[in-house]
């Protein structure tokens, strides 16, 4: 078994909004990320993704519960621990008066394992001019510099907070390439929060969905891909109206009705034959059923929508 790199047990964290008020952000997060794994954290805006990453990086003060990185409680991480952690956030600021070259030269001594050749190679891959000043760079270029600063010392853990937001497709592609570079080293782990599912779909081993401060789902993408499917059911008459939602099978989520048609996502899909039989038992032989495979992105949207409408959800 590979070792656990990130572990969270009942992590609770709230922000104080005034003297008497506290805003709960994380309300009991349990999570485990193993070495050699790319874990993607999904969740709506304000779900607590950034808070969780900042907590892991010890940028924000700990709440209650246990959060460890490399087996060490996050609030006790030492400077030497950061030698093996890379962190890129969308909100990252690099002092603007530096040139790319002088910036990298400035931070290189902070990391004993800084690999100058690797940094140079990344600069070429990313098509960056080392003599350019940070202040004259576009957002995409600045993010690329941030990524180089975070991976040139070949960290064993890369934490990414919304790395793709506001980047054009070409830069996104280069960014993915850069993230992949990390996996060339021994014993890498990637943990990222993002909305851009299309970018990370190919990178991710496991997906976690954070909603309302809790993990509502945490499983391998392969399982996720196989058990969610979109189903369109057409009935010969307006039969759906007669079925109250309570009668629908438990695994159906994001159910929408339109006259005699029913659109839903089956979250416990096994195979078409089994599902078709189940649907025919419910609505009779006359139904027409169509199965449409869903992307991870659509799965997330369906789960999030179901949670928002407050449906009791068995996912």
């Amino acid at each position, binding site marked *: 078994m590979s070792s656990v790199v990130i572990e969270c047990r009942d992590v609770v964290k709230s922000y104080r909004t005034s003297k008497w008020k506290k805003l709960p952000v994380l309300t009991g997060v349990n999570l485990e990320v193993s070495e050699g794994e790319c874990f993607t954290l999904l969740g709506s805006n304000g779900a607590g993704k950034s808070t969780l990453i900042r907590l892991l990086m010890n940028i924000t003060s700990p709440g209650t519960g246990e959060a460890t990185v490399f087996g060490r409680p996050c609030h006790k991480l030492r400077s030497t621990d950061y030698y093996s952690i890379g962190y890129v956030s969308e909100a990252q600021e690099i002092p603007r008066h530096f040139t790319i070259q002088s910036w990298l030269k400035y931070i290189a001594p902070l990391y004993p394992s800084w690999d100058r050749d690797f940094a140079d190679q990344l600069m070429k891959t990313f098509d960056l001019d080392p003599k350019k000043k940070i202040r004259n760079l576009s957002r995409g270029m600045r993010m690329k510099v941030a990524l180089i600063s975070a991976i040139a010392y070949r960290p064993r853990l890369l934490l990414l907070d919304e790395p793709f937001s506001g980047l054009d497709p070409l830069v996104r592609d280069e960014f993915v*390439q850069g993230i992949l570079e990390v996996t060339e080293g021994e014993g890498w782990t990637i943990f990222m929060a993002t909305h851009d599912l299309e970018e990370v779909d190919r990178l991710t081993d496991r997906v976690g969905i954070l909603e309302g401060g809790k993990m509502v789902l945490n499983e391998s*993408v392969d399982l996720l891909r*196989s058990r969610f*499917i979109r189903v369109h059911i057409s009935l010969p008459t307006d039969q759906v109206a007669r079925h109250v939602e309570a009668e629908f099978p438990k695994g159906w989520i994001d159910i929408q009705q339109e006259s005699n048609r029913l659109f839903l996502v089956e979250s416990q899909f096994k195979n078409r034959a089994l599902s078709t039989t189940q649907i025919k038992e419910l609505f009779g032989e006359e139904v027409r059923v169509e199965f449409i495979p*869903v992307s991870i992105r659509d799965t997330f949207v369906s789960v999030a929508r179901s949670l928002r409408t407050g449906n009791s959800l068995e996912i």
Partner: protein
Amino acid sequence: MLPFTVTFRPGNPHYEDIVFAVKRALATGILREGAPFPSVRTVSRELKLNPNTCQRAVSVLVDAGILEVRPGVGTFVAKRVPLNFEEALHLLKDPVENLVVEAKQLGLSEDELHDVVTHSWREIK
């Protein structure tokens, strides 16, 4: 460039899509027996895909006897190992079931589906 083209299908594990792509490249003759097979690293870079996924695809192909790892040299396309009838049936069970359900939904008759299959059969030499 990889010697096979992967089409990622939604709802399918990516490693299965690679395995399928390699098998198809073998069936159509684009990949030949004895040819060197790209490293996991190369596949990962070219497809911008998690190396774990690529490794898994290669493992499946090695287990199936389609690829052969020669330590220190690289990975090669092994002699094509013909599957016995039962193994082939097992592999085909799911796709055939899906195909039949799909065809029934579309209102195709059994004969019409046979025609579709025959056409597809002849298309791939």
